[in-house]
């Protein structure tokens, strides 16, 4: 079986104290797949969390030994990788990359069921499963006023060092500062079960990251949303004609691709929308590149792949690149780097049939364009009503940097470009 590099086994790593076996909730790779190091290969569910297990090395999957729904034990072989370059030591699941950016804190397992070392009135020292920390680390935690049982240990066997205690205290302090702005969950939830049956499911990594990112954006950015609409009757007929050409097979021009291209041009026209606000540095950061993020709905949640240099690519290139990336986003194969560095975001919900909505600015960007479904509408043209295909547009922006008039001009320019796409394509 050994062809090329050595064959490496990926075994289920230690996931935390008292976790012996887990259920495989998803398998993200197949035999023959070429793996990147740290690429998630399976997702497992414990009672408390779902975690991604990353590939320890680069290489090709030669054998896949688990499938969805399997109960697997710590140390059990998950898959074999051929051509692995090094490092059989599998990083624990803490190292798993979180899908969306910016990453939420690493999904450390909370050892909720670790015994809390407290004395009953009748004084009997705990034995056996005391927390794995040296007396000096326990003393430090006590001095700093944190429960040693809450501190995640990063040593062998989950041992908690003095440094772990310090890092935990630091994270608490920072969390408290950030929490003042970010956390919306300060109030306690009622007991919903008093009104009927409920079920609790754990947050996925993507959801956790999305929640943190949205709270932060919402709390940072003073949002205004403006609406406009574009008559895309002409664009639609052009797009259909284009896609009917025999050479267009497999390389379809999509509304989103056209939008990316048009918005990229708009951003060149209105560079403020391609910038970021650096209040602390008392500056505006102007980006000389145009990278456009596109919100993609995946079974696991919202992902935003970024089309680089959209201003210098043509619609066809953009369409095929986006198609390929969206596919990988749905297959969980998108790399974190492919979701970073956007300068503007487009959220097209048209496929799902909505009209206007107010998207949240994908901070540190300063604006986001929401696109609804185009509808045949009776429009008064040349002294009579005519059926026109009307596309609803919603532009949310950061009012700290962008004024209403700027936004109106940007949105109108974009709508007009959609109405007369040829003008734009000629410019290319």
């Amino acid at each position, binding site marked *: 079986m050994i062809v090329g590099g050595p064959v490496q086994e990926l075994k289920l790593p230690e996931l935390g104290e008292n976790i012996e076996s887990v259920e495989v909730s998803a398998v993200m790779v197949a035999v023959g797949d070429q793996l990147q190091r740290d690429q998630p290969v399976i997702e497992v569910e414990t009672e408390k969390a779902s975690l991604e297990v990353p590939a320890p090395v680069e290489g090709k999957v030669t054998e896949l030994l688990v499938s969805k729904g399997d109960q697997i034990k710590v140390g059990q072989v998950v898959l074999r990788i051929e051509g692995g370059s090094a490092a059989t030591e599998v990083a624990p699941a803490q190292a798993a990359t979180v899908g969306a950016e910016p990453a939420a804190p690493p999904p450390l397992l909370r050892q909720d069921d670790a015994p809390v070392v407290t*004395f009953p*009135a009748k004084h009997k020292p*705990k*034995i056996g*499963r005391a927390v*794995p920390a040296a*007396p000096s680390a326990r003393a430090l935690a006590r001095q700093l006023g944190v429960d040693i049982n809450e501190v995640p240990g990063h040593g*062998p*066997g989950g041992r908690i060092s003095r440094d772990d205690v310090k890092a935990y205290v630091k994270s608490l302090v920072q969390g408290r500062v950030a929490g003042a702005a970010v956390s919306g969950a300060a109030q306690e939830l009622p007991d919903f079960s008093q009104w009927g049956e409920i079920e609790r499911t754990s947050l996925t990594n993507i959801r956790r990251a999305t929640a943190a990112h949205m709270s932060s954006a919402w709390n940072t950015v003073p949002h205004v949303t403006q609406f406009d609409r574009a008559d895309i009757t002409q664009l639609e007929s052009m797009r259909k004609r284009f896609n009917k050409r025999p050479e267009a097979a497999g390389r379809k021009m999509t509304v989103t691709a056209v939008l990316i291209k048009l918005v990229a041009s708009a951003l060149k026209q209105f560079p403020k929308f391609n910038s970021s606000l650096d209040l602390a540095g008392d500056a505006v950061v102007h980006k000389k590149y145009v990278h456009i993020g596109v919100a993609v709905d995946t079974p696991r949640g919202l992902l935003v792949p970024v089309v680089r240099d959209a201003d210098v690519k043509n619609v066809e290139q953009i369409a095929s690149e986006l198609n390929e990336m969206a596919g990988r986003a749905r297959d969980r194969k998108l790399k974190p780097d492919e979701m970073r560095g956007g300068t503007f975001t487009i959220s097209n919900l048209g496929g799902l049939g909505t009209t206007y909505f107010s998207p949240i600015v994908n901070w540190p960007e300063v604006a986001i364009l929401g696109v609804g479904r185009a509808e045949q509408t009776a429009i008064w043209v040349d002294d009579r009503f005519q059926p026109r295909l009307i596309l609803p547009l919603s532009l949310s922006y950061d009012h700290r940097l962008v004024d209403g008039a700027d936004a109106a001009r940007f949105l109108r320019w974009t709508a007009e470009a959609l109405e007369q796409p040829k003008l734009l394509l000629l410019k290319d």
Partner: protein
Amino acid sequence: MAESTKLVVIGAGPGGYAAAFLAADLGLEVVVVDPEENPGGVCLYRGCIPSKALLHVAKLIDEAGHAADWGVEFGAPRIDLDRLRGFKDRVVAKLTGGLGQLTKQRKIRHIRGTARFIDANRLEIDLVEGATDTLDFEHAIVATGSHPSRIPTFPESDRILDSTSGLDLEDVPAKLLVVGGGYIGLELGSVYAALGSKVTVVEMTPGLLPGADKDLVRPLHKRLEGRLDEILLSTKVVAIEEQEKGLKVTLEGEDIEQPERVFDRVLVSVGRRPNSAGLGLENTAAAIDEQGFIEVDAQCRTADPRVFAIGDVVGQPMLAHKASHEARVAVETVAGHKVAFEPACIPAVVFTDPEVAWCGLTESEAREAGIKVQVARFPWAASGRAMTLDRDEGLTKLLIDPETERILGVGLVGPGAGELIAEGVLAVEMAALASDLKLSIHPHPTLSETMMEAAEVFFGQSTHVYRPKR
């Protein structure tokens, strides 16, 4: 005229004097109340120290006999009981005298007497010299220790000993009955057996050293069988009658062929009781449980925030090293530090020959609590050092969490086990993994290598134990 102090420590055993010394070192004004001339308590005057002096002698007598196997023969020992007692007393005097010096050097006021609480900030002290005094305090630490349990149905008799009078070594009885097969009974029984007594041990439960794992007790039991006259398990003493020629004892148990026997002396070693009565604790808010232990929290504070309690008087295990650690917690709490008594383990040592020692989780505790452990055993028959001592009955075992490989408990039996267990304590406290022990180079040839090799056994490969491949 009421005198006052910031801190008063009642009792100057290993808990009390450690508390007073630390308090003084932290700059607190401290008074210690204890009837003895010098600090020491049961540990130094009537417990750990004198018994170890005698056990040292007992071991020497045993080894001198054992030496015949190696071609060195000594005559039968001639025992001068007065000189032996003198050796023991000198050890005690030197140590307690040293503590008295340390007390003076630290400028700690020692009031010789017994104290009782009048309320939560005043003590009444019956002075040894006769008068009564009062002392006001801001904080008090109760460290009054424990005393040997008595069996009320036994008669009052000079021939009935407890651990205290047993250590006085008045004579070497021809026939001695030890009631209770715990560590005190076995240690003192071993001393008297070495000095020439025919010793019978009676234990109510089915095994010696209740609480210790059976595999650790087995080698001790086997060796004691050769040294003691008889070990009667699952047996009770139902009556003792004082007769002219001795004590007539009636035994009850399975397979007792001769329930009525006569002994010259009976040593009662059936546990110890806390010294919480007569302290006037009812005049404070401190609470006492049904067994007489003072209830305390993790800071050794009683229900009365001014009153702390440490050592035997607050609960099991009644061990000097537990008391002295609690002392630090209590004093540092008084001094305003954030501390708690939360050890990962408290080691226990039985100073018989072989010694038995353990710390952390035991196998029976793991079973009861449903904690999954993997046990790695290294028999001393595979230890070179044990061979050179001609003592291969020992055993070193590690209780390991199979998931994390963390060492949760250590058990030892064999000569020197009491010294070896310290490494186990460090391993458990530091949350060491089996690989930590395995990869730490242990000196050769020593018994400490058995710790390392037991860790190797856990991983399925040990240099000196061959295991066929499965």
